[in-house]
C-alpha cells in the first residue's frame, strides 16, 4: 500500500465515519437522559429525505441540513410521546419507529428518486488544509465534516460543565433522586431526546447532502443500527464515539481498497471484518474497563408521582 493510497484511505475513513458519528452522538445524548431509542435507522432515513427534499426545493444546503435535523427531532418526538407521556416500552417503540420511518421515507421519497439536489462539496480549510498528512486527512473535507468535529468536545463540555448537561445525566442515572431535588426529570429527558433526534437527523442528511447528492429508498443501509451499537462501544463518551465511528468507517473503506488493489480473499470474508473487529475491540475494552458505563436508568420509564 503506497502512502498516497493510505492517505486517501484515511481521508475516506473520516467521511465514511461522519454519518455514523452524528448518529452515534445523537444516541449518546438521548441515552444519557435515560431514554433508549432504537429508532435511529428510521430517524436517519426521515432526516435524509427531508434534507434532500429541502435542498431540492430551496436550493440551500444549509437550510436542508437544518431541516434534516428537525426531521430527526420530529421522529424523536413520536418516541417521546409514546415513551415519556404514555410510558410505553422503549425497546418496542424504538423498533416501531424504525419500521415507521423506513416506510415513511419510502412512501414519500419514491417520486424523488433519480433526481439530484445541491449539497455540500469538499473544500480545503485555509491553513489547516495545508498541514501535511493531517491536513489531507481531516481538513480537505466538506463543511459538514468540519461541523461534526465540533460536536464531540461541545457535548463533552455540555455534560460536564453546564447545568442542563448535568441535569440530563442525573435524569438518566437516578430519576427519582433528581425529581426529589426539585428538577423536572421529564423536561430534561424530552430535551435530551429531541436534541439527540436533531443529531441523528443530521447524520441522515449527511448521507443525502454530502456523502451522495441523491435519494433512494433505504439510503442508510443499516448505518443507524451501527450507531446504536457504537454508543455502547463508546461507553457513552463522545470522544470514544469518534474513535468508534472512524474505526468502523475506516475498516469498511479499507476492505474496499483491499479488493481494489487485487486481493485473493473472498469478499464475504472481507465484509465480515468491520463487524468482527468491532466485537473484538468492544470485548477488549470492556475487559479492560471495570464497570458498565450505561446510564443506570437507561430504558426505564419514569413512574408518575402521586
Amino acid at each position, binding site marked *: 500500500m503506497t502512502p*498516497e*493510497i493510505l492517505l*486517501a*484511505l484515511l481521508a*475516506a475513513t473520516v467521511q*465514511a465515519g461522519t*454519518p455514523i458519528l452524528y448518529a452515534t452522538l445523537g444516541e449518546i445524548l438521548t441515552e444519557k437522559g435515560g431514554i433508549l431509542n432504537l429508532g435511529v435507522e428510521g430517524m436517519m432515513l426521515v432526516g435524509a429525505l427531508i434534507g434532500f427534499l429541502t435542498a431540492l426545493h430551496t436550493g440551500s444546503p444549509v437550510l436542508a441540513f437544518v431541516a434534516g435535523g428537525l426531521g430527526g427531532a420530529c421522529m424523536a418526538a413520536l418516541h417521546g410521546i409514546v415513551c415519556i407521556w404514555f410510558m410505553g416500552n422503549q425497546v418496542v417503540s424504538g423498533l416501531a419507529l424504525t419500521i415507521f420511518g423506513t416506510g415513511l421515507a*419510502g412512501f414519500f*421519497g*419514491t417520486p424523488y*428518486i*433519480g*433526481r*439530484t439536489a445541491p449539497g455540500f*462539496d*469538499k473544500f480545503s480549510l485555509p491553513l489547516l488544509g495545508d498541514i501535511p498528512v493531517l491536513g489531507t486527512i481531516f481538513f480537505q473535507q466538506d463543511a459538514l465534516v468540519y461541523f461534526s468535529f465540533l460536536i464531540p468536545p461541545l457535548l463533552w463540555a455540555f455534560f460536564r460543565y453546564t447545568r442542563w448537561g448535568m441535569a440530563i445525566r442525573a435524569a438518566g442515572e437516578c430519576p427519582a433522586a433528581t425529581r426529589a431535588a426539585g428538577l423536572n426529570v421529564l423536561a430534561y429527558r424530552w430535551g435530551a431526546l429531541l436534541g439527540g433526534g436533531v443529531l441523528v437527523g443530521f447524520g441522515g442528511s449527511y*448521507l443525502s447532502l454530502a*456523502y*451522495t*447528492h*441523491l435519494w*433512494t*429508498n*433505504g*439510503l442508510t*443501509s443499516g*448505518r443507524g443500527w451501527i450507531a446504536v451499537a457504537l454508543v455502547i462501544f463508546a461507553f457513552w463518551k463522545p470522544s470514544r464515539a469518534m474513535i468508534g465511528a472512524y474505526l468502523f468507517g475506516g475498516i*469498511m*473503506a479499507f476492505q*474496499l*481498497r483491499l*479488493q*481494489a*488493489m*487485487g*486481493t*485473493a*480473499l*473472498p*469478499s*464475504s470474508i472481507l*465484509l465480515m471484518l468491520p463487524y468482527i473487529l468491532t466485537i473484538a475491540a468492544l470485548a477488549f475494552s470492556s475487559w479492560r474497563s471495570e464497570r458498565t458505563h450505561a446510564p443506570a436508568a437507561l430504558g426505564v420509564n419514569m413512574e408518575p408521582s402521586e
Partner: protein
Amino acid sequence: MMRKCLPLFLLAFLALGSTCFAKDLKVGFVYVSPVGDAGYSYAHDQGRLAVEALDGVTTSFVESVAEGQDSERVILNMARKGFDVIFATSYGYMDPMLKVAKEFPQVKFLHCSGYKNSENMANYFGRIYQARYLTGMVAGAMTKSKIIGYVAAFPIPEVIRGINAFTLGAQAVNPDVQVRVVWTKTWYDPATEKEAAKSLLDVGCDVIAQHQDSPGPQEAAQERGVYSVGYNTDMSAFAPKAHLTAAIWNWGPFYAEMVQQIKDGTWKSDFYWYGMDKGIVDIAPFGEMVPAEVQKSVLDKKAEIASGAYQVFTGPIKDQAGAEKVAAGAVMADGDLLGFNWFVQGVVGTLE
C-alpha cells in the same frame, strides 16, 4: 365519500371473489426491491407501463418481495386472484414460481434471469452483455491509465458475464487494459457504492463502470473529474461531466410482445433471451466528451451485434490465469454464458 368508494368496493370484491370474469387480461409483476430503487426494478416497472398501455390489459405489481417463502405466497395469490400472466423478475423466484406453475396450468408464468422452465412457465432475460461490450469499448478508448474500475454487486453469473463482456470490449480497442473489480454485496447502497468507486480511483482507475442500481459510483467519478459508465438507465443527470454512456434496459417492447402473443394465443413457453436485435438492451446517448470516431466505431459494432454478424464471446478467450477457454473462432454457447463462472484475462478480482 361512500358513493365514491362503493364502485371500488365492488371492484375489489370482484377481484377477490372471481377468477376469470374480467375480460381484460390481468398481468402481474413481482419485484425484488422497491420500484423506487432507481435501478433494476424501476427498469422492469417501466416495461410494465408499456404493457399497461396495450388495449384490454390491466397490470399490477407487488414490490419488495423477499425471495424466500414470501415470493411463493405472492405468486400463488396472484394466480388465485385470477391473474392470467405473471412476471417474476429475480432469479430467487425460480423454484417458487415453478411450484405455483404446476398448480395453475392455465396461467402463464414468465421468470426472469433463471434457467428452469415448464409447459406454462417460460424464462427470459436480456443480453445486456452486448451493451456492456459496447460500453467497454467506450471506456477502453477513454482510459489513459489503462486501468478501469468496476463496482459490482454480487458474484452471480449475470454480473460476471457483464464484467467479462465489458473487459473484452475495452480490450478490443485497447489490448492491455485492465479491469479491477470490487464487490459491494449490495444492490443499492449509494454511499457504499460511491466509496467502492473511490477506492478504485485511489488505485489508479480513471474510468468507473458499475453493476449497481444506484448512481453512487457516477458521482464519485464526477467529483474526481474522471469518466464513468452507467447501468440500468441513462445516469447522465448524476454525472454530466463524467457519464460516457450506459448499458440500459428497455423491457417495454419485450413485455408488450409477450403479452400480445398471450392475448392472441400464439405464445408458447420457451427460453427467451433477447438482445440488441430486439432493442431490449441498448446504450445510452454518448456524453459530449466521447470523440466522434469512437462513437462511430461503437455504433458500427452495435450494428454488427444487432444484425448477428458479431458475437461478443467469440474466441480466442483466455481466463485470468491465461489458459485458453474458448478456441479461436469458436462462439460460447448460451448454456455456458448462462452459467459464466470465470473471469476473462485482464480482470483483476475474485469470484467470491
